[in-house]
């Protein structure tokens, strides 16, 4: 039987990586990771290993926390009238150490939803059905979303090479 401590130790990096790609902001991902595990600790009694792995369940909790974060950010942006300004350009790596600047910029041009599916399927290497369950969509929709995200990523990389 997996304890919460074991699950947290084993999947902390997964949750963090997912949130980094999802939010596109490493400091926000750090905060959300901490919040995710606090929520997960409170909700651990609801975790049912027969319905999915601890990693998938933790990603679902992280997703809820991230969506709440996006909603509050949008409200804040509206209040501060900076909504629509888009993602800020940064010099330091936003996603991961070691990524090429071209890939960093290409990822930054993707939406949160597109980065999310790349994070789950490519970075965390979850299978299609598990990713679909984590996102609350059908496996077909998940596959379509991944294809579009990768096409967009390739396109963005092509634009960078051409430039």
């Amino acid at each position, binding site marked *: 039987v997996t*304890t*919460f*401590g074991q699950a*947290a*130790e084993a999947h*902390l*990096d997964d*949750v*963090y*990586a997912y949130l*980094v*790609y999802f*939010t*596109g902001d*490493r400091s926000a*991902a*750090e905060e959300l*990771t*901490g919040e995710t*595990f*606090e929520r997960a*600790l*409170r909700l*651990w*009694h*609801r975790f049912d290993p027969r319905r999915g792995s601890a990693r998938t369940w933790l990603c679902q909790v992280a997703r809820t926390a991230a*969506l709440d974060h*996006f*909603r509050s*950010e*949008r409200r804040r942006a509206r209040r501060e009238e900076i909504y629509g300004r888009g993602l800020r350009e940064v010099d330091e790596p936003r*996603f*991961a*150490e*070691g*990524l*090429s600047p071209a*890939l960093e910029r*290409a990822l930054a041009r993707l*939406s*949160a*939803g597109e980065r*999310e599916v*790349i994070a789950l399927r*490519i*970075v965390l*290497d979850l299978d299609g059905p598990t990713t679909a369950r984590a996102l*609350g969509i059908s496996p077909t929709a998940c596959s379509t979303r991944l*294809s579009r995200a*990768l*096409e967009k*990523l*390739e396109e963005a*990389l*092509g634009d960078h*090479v051409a430039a």
Partner: protein
Amino acid sequence: VTMSQPDPLTELRANRPVAPAALRDHVRLLTASRPAPPRRITWRRGLLVLAPTAVAVVALGIAVRGDGTHTRAADQAVREPAPLTKTPAGTVTVPFSAATPQAALGDRAGVPSNSGKRLQDYEAYLRLRVKDGDAVSAATQRAISVARSLGGYPVSVDVANGGRDGDATLTLRVPVTHVQEAVARLSALGTILGERVSIQDVQGGVNAVDRQIARLQRRLRELRAQDPTDRVKRQIEALTQEVQRLQRNRAATVRQARLATVSVELTTRRPEPPAKSESGPLDGAWTALRWIGIGALFALIVGGPFVVLGILAFLAWRIARRRAEARLLASS
């Protein structure tokens, strides 16, 4: 998906973000300081247990109540004489009992006694089974003998004897002072299939007639003291006739009350067995299932539209939430 060189997917996998040490320490501290709360009973789990339990309790309750009522009624029929029922008109009736044992009447415990001081209209009914047509004839003769030996007489006798089968209906009049003995002796003529006793108090009516007669007689005395005009004479004549009519009625009521009417039915036919559905250990279960079915159908009819509306509202809410989520993620 094919990608241009360098392969970004390989690059993404090779450079997975790693949680900073501070975040790792924070999570470790979190898990160490606060153990995960124990698994609680959720409402869904509780419902899964409570719903069948409630249904089982209701079914059991109906089943036990149904069986219990039947058992109590049967016990009462066997162990006790049928209870008396008083009606507003002063009638006391022992209801028909299809299973009253012979002992109940044989020891006179089941036959209400006549009140010695008040005038009462006493009626008793007995239904007896005898073995064959000859026994019907013999029992008829003995019943008449019983009535005569107690100072009574037969009012009507109707005997139909077909040899093997037979029926007889007797109406006997016996003095109310001997009615208990008469019923006890008559009930010994066969196996009792049913009995009924009805007692109606007529003393109140007789007293009222007495008061009315006394009033009319006072009025007569007053009229006779007056001058005997034609009008007074006609009044005296009318009142005299009314007094005589009332006195005849009173006398008839008193005569009626001095004798009890005992109706006896003799038959060779066996009583029909009770309906199968009224007995058996599964009756309660069927009753419970029927009521549960009725309740479920009622709930379906009443709650169905609300359930459909609820489902539609939930689906609409989920679609709206997903669209809002998609817009949120597309703009973030």
